């Protein structure tokens, strides 16, 4: 094997005219010129690899940054926030000395290419973010969006994604407690695979990604580095090597959950013994990201010897090693006298650990290979000072027409029979049908702290066995609403997740988001993005729930066709005693059903308009955040004081969907009476926000009504839990067995 001379810093300085494949690596001409300007010379191949991957949209947020600033600027005052945006994950104070970290990320594109591994490594990545904060992961959630349920490719993508999430998460021992599954043709070539995780720690155990203290050692531990996920780096490799090596490698990384499980235990043990100064997981951009971020967040520089990185493939070039996205790796900064003990713990867990460098007192990141210096950069220019774009954005020309196409004018059922048929069609439609075929492939029970899991309104985990302190999480996002009005659509996503947390009895504290959009180079998409961010930031400010972190996924589009703008919002809540949680299922016959909130004729973007008319137009439901806050307070008080035995938030599908779910889960029917002033159709199908249905024991009726009256929340008695039929009086009755058959057979039939 012959080699061209190593492209060292010296070599680069001496050969200014060498052409580098910056365009193939995804850099724009002006971006490359900026790299040359920063360095005062052309970059080496290794430096170019680092800049190109760290300045990518995925790592640098270059198109979204100018908008995301609002989350900080508009952040409400909150005592709960311990660590904010910018770290691996945000950290929230939940009381009793506990801190909780949570985050949602996307793994959309890899999951389309290779559903199983794409989804599996999505779980792996988010879990490493959580452990990098010093927390023990306690649960995962998975908001998913697929193409049309009956499209043949959905049958390829969905089962693989679900098996990947299950295969990885189950093997890590993390209960899967929530998420969503949504079908829409707009996601056909761009499924959204978002993955969220929650971790718990004591306040004093919070760890940050920074390398401080000259002389401290940089330890790479976990899996060996291989050629997976290196993408564009192979272009550089082919420049520096001849072709006597494996050329085509998988673009999607391959996960090893067993290795990750060992990594979790080994990392937490090292934390427990206070052996770690700073820590960073290796995700996107691998070592390029970990070294440059650790160094730029710390007080000094860093020197790394790349020859010491344990490899799976000895033919890897230094550029490939820097860019490799091999999974299950972490990087820790450890004081010299603690290195032996750190390595001992790694050995106990059979985890490979290697000192690859040290913190220096300079301010440069220097990387060596075969004795030559191949990287000499200011790490901040790599990690934090990437390009920032003010992309042009403009309200699309079709937006007015879309909003004028009013769903409220669609033909409505004319007879009771027709109304009944549409109810059955709704509860059996893929989006409204039971997802148990999917969720039964996830372990809900492991760790023995799961109080609530899907299909409950939020997932809930006990975090203290003595006091019963717990946390709840819900994720929501309605791309149809956001398409009609991205500003209010994003607010509705937040409102729904906020409401879902409160419905189970927990107090909403903080927000993480995963913003899934099309190409930022399309001004219409950029407008959707800007509007959604502005809407979400405004709503978070008003509800007092700060955004602690999140993720942006752009370029979710095929050709000219972008996905619906899909901001997925996760809300984290806290509950003082999980014994007081409120489930969805009806508990006892004879309990009174109350509808909280106002019901209006709001069908724009509704499930009814989709299922019955295949229609998307008009305006989404009106947003009233003060009402959401009041509703949440009532739901939390009612749960704490034992005034309600079950509760369900009203969202897509409206009231009838909620009642059917509560009835099926509780195996108890309901008699419903259409309230005065509403027609049966609006009563059953409207998607007005800020509403919930609760079941009140008769002994609590007066107290509950008094509380709602005193606080000014509209409350309407709509029926009673009773029998084995869902009976809308004067209209129709459906037996639970008929409803169950309709609700539960759809997904298995589509995916078998």
């Amino acid at each position, binding site marked *: 094997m012959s080699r061209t001379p190593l492209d060292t810093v010296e070599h680069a300085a001496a050969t200014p005219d060498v052409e580098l494949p910056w365009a193939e690596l995804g850099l724009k001409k002006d971006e490359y010129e900026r790299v040359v300007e920063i360095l005062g010379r052309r970059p080496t191949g290794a430096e170019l690899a680092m800049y190109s991957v760290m300045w990518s949209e995925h790592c640098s947020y270059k198109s979204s940054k100018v908008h995301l600033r609002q989350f900080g600027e508009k952040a409400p005052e909150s005592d709960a926030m311990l660590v904010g945006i910018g770290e691996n994950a945000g950290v929230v104070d939940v009381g009793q000395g506990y801190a909780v970290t949570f985050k949602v990320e996307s793994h959309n594109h890899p999951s389309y290419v290779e559903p199983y591994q794409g989804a599996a490594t999505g779980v792996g990545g988010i879990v490493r973010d959580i452990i990098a904060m010093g927390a023990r992961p306690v649960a995962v959630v998975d908001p998913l969006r697929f193409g049309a349920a009956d499209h043949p490719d959905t049958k390829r993508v969905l089962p693989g994604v679900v098996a990947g999430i299950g295969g990885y998460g189950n*093997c890590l021992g993390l209960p899967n407690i929530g998420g969503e599954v949504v079908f829409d043709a707009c996601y056909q070539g761009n499924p959204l695979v978002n993955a969220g995780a929650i971790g718990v720690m004591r306040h004093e155990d919070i760890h940050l990604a920074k390398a401080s203290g000259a002389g401290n050692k940089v330890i790479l531990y976990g899996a060996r580095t291989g050629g997976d996920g290196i993408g564009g780096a192979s272009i550089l490799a082919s420049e520096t090597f001849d072709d006597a090596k494996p050329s085509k490698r998988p673009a999607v990384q391959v996960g090893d959950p067993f290795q990750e499980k060992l990594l979790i235990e080994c990392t937490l043990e090292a934390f427990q013994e206070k052996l770690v100064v700073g820590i960073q997981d290796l995700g996107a951009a691998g070592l390029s990201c970990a070294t440059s971020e650790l160094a730029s967040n710390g007080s000094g520089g860093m020197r790394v010897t790349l020859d010491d990185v344990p490899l799976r493939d000895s033919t890897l070039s230094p550029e490939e090693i820097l860019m490799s996205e091999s999974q299950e790796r972490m990087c820790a900064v450890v004081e010299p006298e603690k290195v032996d003990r750190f390595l001992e713990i790694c050995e106990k867990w059979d985890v490979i650990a290697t000192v690859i460098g040290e913190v220096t007192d300079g301010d440069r990141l220097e990387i060596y290979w075969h004795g030559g210096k191949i990287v000499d950069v200011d790490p901040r220019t790599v990690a934090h000072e990437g390009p920032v774009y003010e992309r042009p954005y403009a309200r699309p020309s079709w937006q007015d027409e879309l909003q004028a196409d009013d769903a409220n004018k669609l033909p409505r059922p004319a007879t009771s029979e027709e109304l009944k048929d549409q109810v059955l069609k709704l509860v059996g439609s893929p989006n409204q049908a039971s997802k148990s075929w999917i969720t039964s492939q996830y372990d809900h029970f492991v760790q023995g702290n799961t109080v609530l899991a899907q299909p409950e309104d939020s997932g809930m985990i006990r975090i203290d066995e003595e006091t019963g302190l717990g946390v709840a999480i819900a994720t929501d996002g309605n791309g149809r609403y956001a398409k009609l009005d991205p500003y209010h659509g994003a607010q509705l996503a937040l409102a729904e997740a906020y409401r879902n947390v409160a419905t189970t009895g927990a107090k909403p504290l903080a927000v993480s988001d995963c913003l899934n959009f099309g190409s930022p180079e399309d001004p219409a998409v950029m407008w959707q993005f800007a509007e959604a961010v502005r809407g979400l930031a405004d709503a978070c400010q008003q509800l007092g729930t700060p955004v602690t972190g999140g993720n942006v996924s752009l370029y979710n589009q095929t050709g000219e066709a972008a996905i619906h703008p899909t901001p997925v919002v996760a809300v984290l809540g806290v509950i003082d005693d999980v014994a007081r949680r409120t489930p969805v299922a009806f508990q006892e016959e004879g309990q009174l059903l109350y509808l909280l909130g106002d019901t209006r004729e709001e069908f724009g973007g509704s499930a009814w308009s989709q299922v019955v008319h295949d229609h998307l137009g008009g305006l989404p439901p009106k947003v009233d955040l003060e009402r959401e806050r009041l509703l949440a307070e009532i739901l939390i008080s009612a749960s704490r004081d034992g005034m309600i035995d079950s509760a369900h938030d009203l969202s897509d599908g409206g009231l009838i969907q909620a009642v059917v779910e509560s009835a099926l889960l509780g195996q108890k029917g309901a008699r419903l009476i259409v309230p005065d002033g509403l027609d049966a159709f609006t009563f059953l199908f409207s998607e007005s926000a800020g509403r919930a249905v609760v079941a009140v024991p008769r002994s609590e009726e007066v107290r509950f009504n008094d509380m709602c009256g005193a606080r000014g929340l509209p409350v309407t008695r709509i029926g009673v839990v009773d029998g084995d039929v869902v009976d809308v009086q004067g209209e129709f009755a459906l037996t639970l067995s008929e409803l169950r058959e309709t609700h539960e057979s759809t997904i298995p039939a589509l995916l078998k």
Partner: protein
Amino acid sequence: MTARIGVVTFPGSLDDRDTQRAIRVAGAEPVALWHKDKDLKQVDAVVLCGGFSYGDYLRAGAIARFSPVMEPLLEQAKAGLPVLGICNGFQILTEAHLLPGTMLRNDHLHFICRDQKLRVENAGTAWTTDYSAGQEIHIPLKNNDGQYVADAYTLDKLEAEGRVAFRYLDFNPNGSQRDIAGVSNEAGNVVGLMPHPEHAVEPLIGTGRTDGLPFFTSILKKLVNA
């Protein structure tokens, strides 16, 4: 005095802390055992818990079975030490030939997690005396490789000797032969099952039932009264 019950952690064990909690809830003292331990720290009984030991990339339990801790465990189990294998623990016990049969991948080829109905067929083993024979219970089940199989001779022998300890009711979640959810050895001190009693010991957690607690109270009574 109370009983000391060991819980072995293999690399990839997942339910070790949960099992320790279940032992505590029952009133016994959990003792953490490590897969590299060469002795059992004089515990009175051992639980091999659920998980994916060594990732289960080979046959489930096939590697864990050769861990150092299994040597004293095999020896003492044959001499009467009570051992319970749950899920991956059951798979390890069959790989170690302390229990007959083996587990294949679920017949439907998916991981399955559900609240499973069982019938206690034998309330005479070391781990089931707090149940009554024929009692119907619900405990969580979650596995990928839970299809119990053995040759007809072995199955007939198990049935004849009353060693089918638990059977799935209403729904066979993984294609197990004769709906078998768990079996015991001849002496009744070694029991293995696929469902997870340790996830059903507190009313608020998991499925909301405590149907799994008698596993741990049974053994505690036996040990304390011994």
